């Protein structure tokens, strides 16, 4: 986390340096500028036009303000000495300021000054000139918004200005934007076909959605331009579809990770032990509440540690949920082995008790679990934007999965667990204390549910009902993936997550979920033992 913060400071500074280096400002001294401003008060429009373009050529940042005032009719000329000033009506006088320095001048009586006249033609020139000027502004945000504005208006007149600005531009991003604005303007002009086709290529390299907007009107134009536009539109659409699919996959993976986290503990208790734990969701819920408590303690006693709160909550949640799991196994479930339906009912009762206990303790409404800073924010990937929390959830779920696999494959507990699963009697006659293995297995499954609760507290409301929302989905994942097989759970969770996200655009979130549920129900009919079914007597019993 520390590293993270350092990094962001570094990036900020870097940006600042670039900013200074890139300043396009070319200030001109007042002496050169003054006559040009005076020239605005020429006696005919032609002279004014010339004055405007002369002013613009200086590229001085003050020019745009003066031209603004001109266009708004705030620029006056004193009848006596012909000085040009910025005026504001103030009773029978004009409150006057110097257009260049901005210093206050003596008020000028209204009768002794004249407004510099502008007509529509001039106003348009002024507008274009101002656009051009902000294109040259030394503020990068201003330049960007000027380019964006032209991208919208697609005014062909701004082409020369854009050319100028592009030549001067140093920021790559803004430059690209300007080039696209120019291409858009070209498409809107009566330039030659080959120029336009080049512009089409330019446009379609940019933001796909904007490009679609620019190109769609051209689609029906006769001749090579229309064809080029159509081809460009097609390729943009394919690209959009591609990124859309990527987005669905990523969203699906993150939903799948949530499912995986919720289901993986169940996969152990149900899959490995054959115990139906309807209170599994409550183990998740208790993990989330543990996070809440940990954060409360940190807030009051060590606020500086807040960014580490989740790391502290992980082992705490594992121990709390796992401990409760062991107690449940020793106290109730062990009396019900071999009676799966009764186990189901008893654990449902446990889930009610746990929910009510939490409700009596913490209240029925949501508690506020905070996000550490590193969970906040988002980043761009191609054409899509992803939040960090989405990414972290995926990473976290996969790590939990990997660690669990390691525990099962490489540790003594894992070995014993597998032995007991495969042949309980043989295992016990080999000296494995099966009751303890049962209790620890159940504790492990419950503890992992607690860990899942830590993660879910970051993306879901933490209330006593938290677990209820996950229990059916998690069972579906385990059943779909195939019982007794963690890989099945992984594949099951991810494919259900992705299927959900792909169905959502067509069917809406709720209907999508219903469709997935119905598909699973149908799927179980076809493959009652799930995707990755073990075959054999052990399973049938």
């Amino acid at each position, binding site marked *: 986390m520390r590293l993270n913060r350092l990094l962001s400071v570094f990036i900020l500074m870097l940006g600042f340096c670039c900013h200074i280096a890139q300043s396009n400002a070319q200030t001109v001294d007042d002496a050169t500028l003054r006559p040009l401003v005076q020239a605005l008060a020429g006696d005919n429009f032609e002279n004014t036009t010339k004055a405007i373009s002369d002013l613009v050529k200086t590229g001085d940042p003050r020019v745009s303000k003066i031209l603004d005032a001109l266009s708004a009719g705030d620029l006056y000329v004193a009848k006596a000495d012909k000085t040009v000033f910025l005026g504001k009506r103030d009773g029978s006088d004009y409150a006057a300021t110097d257009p260049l320095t901005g210093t206050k001048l003596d008020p000028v009586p209204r009768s002794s000054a004249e407004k510099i006249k502008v007509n529509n033609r001039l106003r348009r020139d002024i507008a274009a000139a101002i656009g051009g000027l902000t294109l040259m502004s030394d503020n990068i945000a201003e330049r960007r918004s000027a380019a964006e504005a032209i991208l919208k208006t697609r005014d062909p007149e701004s082409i020369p200005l854009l050319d100028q600005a592009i030549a001067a531009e140093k920021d790559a991003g803004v430059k690209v934007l300007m080039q696209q604005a120019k291409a858009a303007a070209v498409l809107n002009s009566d330039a030659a076909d080959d120029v336009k086709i080049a512009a089409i290529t330019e446009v379609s390299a940019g933001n796909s959605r904007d490009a679609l907007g620019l190109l769609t009107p051209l689609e029906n134009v006769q001749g090579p331009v229309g064809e080029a536009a159509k081809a460009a539109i097609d390729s943009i659409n394919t690209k959009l579809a591609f990124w859309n699919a990527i987005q669905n996959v990523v969203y699906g993976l993150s939903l799948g990770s949530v499912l995986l986290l919720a289901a993986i503990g169940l996969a152990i208790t149900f899959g490995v032990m054959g115990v*139906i734990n309807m209170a599994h969701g409550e183990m998740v819920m208790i993990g989330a509440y543990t996070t809440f408590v940990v954060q409360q303690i940190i807030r009051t006693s060590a606020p500086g540690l807040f960014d580490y709160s989740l790391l502290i909550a992980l082992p705490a949640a594992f121990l709390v949920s796992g401990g409760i799991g062991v107690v449940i196994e020793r106290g*109730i479930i062990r*009396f*019900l082995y*071999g*009676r*799966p*339906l*009764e*186990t*189901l*009912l*008893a654990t*449902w*009762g*446990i*889930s*009610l*008790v746990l*929910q*009510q*206990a939490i*409700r*009596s303790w913490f209240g029925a409404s949501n508690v506020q679990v905070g996000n550490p800073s590193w969970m906040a924010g988002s980043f761009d990937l191609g054409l899509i934007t992803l939040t960090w929390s989405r990414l972290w959830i995926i990473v976290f779920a996969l790590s939990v999965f990997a660690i669990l696999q390691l525990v099962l494959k490489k540790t003594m507990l894992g070995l014993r667990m597998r032995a007991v699963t495969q042949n309980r009697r043989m295992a016990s006659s080999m000296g494995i204390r099966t009751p303890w293995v049962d209790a620890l297995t159940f504790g492990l499954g419950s503890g992992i549910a607690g860990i899942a609760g830590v993660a879910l507290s970051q993306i879901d409301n933490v209330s006593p009902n938290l677990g*209820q929302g996950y229990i*059916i989905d998690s*069972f*579906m994942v385990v*059943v779909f993936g195939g019982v007794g097989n963690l890989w099945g759970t992984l594949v099951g969770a991810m494919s259900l997550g992705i299927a959900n996200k792909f169905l959502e655009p067509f069917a809406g979130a*709720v*209907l999508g*979920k*219903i469709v997935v*549920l*119905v598909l*699973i*129900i*149908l799927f*179980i*009919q*076809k493959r*009652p033992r799930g995707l990755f079914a073990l075959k054999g007597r052990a399973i*049938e*019993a």
Partner: protein
Amino acid sequence: MITQWFFTHVDRRGGIAIALLVAIAFLVPLSNLLLPETSPLHIPTYLVSLIGKYLTYALLAVALDLVWGFCGILSLGHGAFFALGGYAMGMYLMRQIGPRGVYADPVLPDFMVFLNWKELPWFWHGFDNFWFAALMVVLVPGALAFGFGWLAFRSRVTGVYLSIITQALTYALLLAFFRNDMGFGGNNGLTDFKDILGFNIQAGTTRSMLFAATALFLALAVFVSSFIIRSKLGKVLVGVRDAESRMRFLGYRVDRYKLFVWTISAMMAGIAGALYVPQVGIINPSEFEPANSIEAVIWVAVGGRGTIIGPIIGAVLVNFGKTYFTAAFPEIWLFALGALFIIVTLFLPKGILGLYGSWRTKLADRAARKKDSAPPPVAAENVHLPEPQAAE
């Protein structure tokens, strides 16, 4: 003649239960309608409706026991059939409102006007007719159960797998009925009913008649269940419960037997829902909550599964407790319900009736031993639930 026919299909307990139900079907309305309110025997209307509600739950429990207690299919989705029956009845009641709704549309129920719908969706047609609605009360749950069961039983989905997908079924329906564009009033469901078959639904007389109908339907359900259980089909079902694959090796198409009893049971549940809705005055998607279906399971477990009247006792007792606790100690109710699940499964697997049964057997055993003759361990009435054993 008829009594003889009756008693070949119903055992003594069932006979008593039926007689009692028929009796209260007449006595409760009489007491409510004829006795003065000051009389100690007068039953106030709210109580009539409350007991009526309990009896619809009892009907649901009987339906559930038919599949769980006698055939080993633990359904965690029977609430769905109950709710579907309820919705069918609710649709009839909605159409009866006619122009008396808030928006006074002669045809469209209020919620449709509110959603700016212009005409009645196709599946709402016909529900202005009571008999059509009554048919749908059994056909819709029956058809769903048939389709679902046909798929599930044919591919031999059993045990907890089946339980879990029945739960998923009711969950999917819950989500679906929450949607406004399903056309069933979304979140709010169907309510504000005015009358049924032309009678004001709030009137005491109507309430009493609904009560009587519920008691009679429950009596009928007890009879139908007894008839099924005491037939050879019932023996097959128990055989399926105890050793399903053995039954197959005897040449029985187990899936069809299950499908039969499953569908019948769903229809009973639908009737229960249809009787429930006019008595509570509302039906909304929360009836599809998986928790409701599991709660129904505990009624059966408490009363004694695999018995015909156990579920009735369980449903009435548990719901009485629920009414009492949620009013007196709302915090405690979930603790109590949760504890009930745990205690019943751990210590009372055969429920109250099972306890009573084994107590009686013990007495009989002692008496017999006194007489010093080996007792034939007949247990016609006792529940006996061996663990299902897989035929090897």
